[in-house]
């Protein structure tokens, strides 16, 4: 089961690839995409991403569920590009953006969160000589990941309390307690780390 509820267990070739390989491939394709200036290679990148989903046997509905919240951004970027630089440039930008979003989603859908964190820790290991502690980087990532469901829970609790008191249309009554309680939660996490001797 995934910490963030995104990972879909499977036994496909994409699932079996080491997390570090997937992350490096994603970074590599991201770097290459900077040199894509025409619609055809952009569409080819989208094709590569779609092939990845097919190879991973991810149902289209599951992929769409992850990508739907990002669609407005893609549409907005495409519209701005169309207005400023014309159709081909818009198609190129949208194609590259869509391909990268699809590939990032594919990595998330086929890799457990813990493996992503471990891979990132391994990838930053060479930076130890520059004073960067890879274990600390991993701890920061893990704490960040752990904070997501905590803040979602906080938001849900505050929204329920708002509803119970008939304050559904007051964004301030939502935002202020959410920020205050999130900061309080951060304090408590720091206290727990101290109590457990982490960072001593």
């Amino acid at each position, binding site marked *: *089961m*995934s*910490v963030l*509820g995104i990972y879909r267990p499977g036994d496909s070739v994409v699932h079996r690839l080491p997390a570090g390989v997937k992350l490096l491939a994603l970074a590599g394709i991201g770097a290459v995409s900077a040199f894509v200036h025409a619609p055809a290679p952009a569409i080819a990148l989208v094709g590569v991403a779609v092939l990845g989903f097919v190879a991973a046997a991810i149902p289209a509905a599951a992929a769409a569920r992850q990508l739907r919240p990002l669609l407005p951004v893609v549409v907005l970027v495409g519209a701005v590009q169309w207005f400023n630089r014309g159709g081909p440039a818009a198609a190129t930008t949208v194609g590259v953006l869509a391909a990268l979003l699809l590939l990032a989603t594919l990595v998330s859908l086929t890799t*457990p*969160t*813990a493996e992503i964190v471990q891979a990132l820790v391994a990838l930053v290991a060479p930076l130890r000589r520059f004073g960067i502690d890879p*274990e600390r980087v991993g*701890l920061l990532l*893990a*704490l960040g*990941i*752990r904070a997501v*469901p*905590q803040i979602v*829970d906080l938001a849900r609790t505050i929204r329920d309390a708002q509803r119970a008191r008939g304050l559904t249309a007051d964004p301030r009554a939502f935002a202020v307690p959410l920020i205050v309680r999130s900061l309080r*939660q951060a304090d*408590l*996490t720091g*206290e*727990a*780390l*101290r*109590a*457990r*001797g*982490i960072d*001593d």
Partner: protein
Amino acid sequence: MSEIVFDGVSHDFGAERVVDDVSLVLRERRVGIVGANGSGKSTLARMINGLVEPTVGRVLVDGLDVARHGREVRRRVGFVFTNADNQIVMPTVREDVALGLRRHRLSRAEVAHRVEAALDAVGLGDHADHPAHLLSSGQKQLLALTSVLVTEPDVLVLDEPTTLLDLRNARDVVRRLTGLRQQVVLVTHDLTALDGFDRVLTIDAGRVVFDGDPAGAVAAYVAAMA
């Protein structure tokens, strides 16, 4: 057992004195602390682990001044919070238990072995890769306890560990405490949890108003509430 010394300890939160001139030596295997909300009992317990430092006086664990030797003391003293959600800081059950072993400089294989054994011992072995935030309240408190016990502390301080649990889970936690080899300092409102304890302190307005057997401490607590 370890020796926990409170030597003329007071603690102020702002202008308010929440612990007032407490001097104690705790050597017993099972020590309970009871008292009303805001009486200072949690502050007292937090001083043993160095989460709170005295404004006046010293707290010593096996001769080590907690304020000056916090790192060494925290290796000896594990702390369990009331709300396990505040204590569990890692995304998955396995990672949270492994976190405490970071400072022990063990091999990966040894960490994996210890984590697995610890989780199996409390029946959470099947949940090792489960997101910690999706566990039940009882399972979370067991995880919090396991994450501390896996580091093999000499002393275990628990600050109202059963307050947020239903009766079954509360009894499960108390039952597990009974079998531990560690010296236990338990802050609680659950007076039945103190059965068989060697020594129980009743705290009121930051002072120790009773120090003795569980029955006497409960009577003193009830009297303080009257």
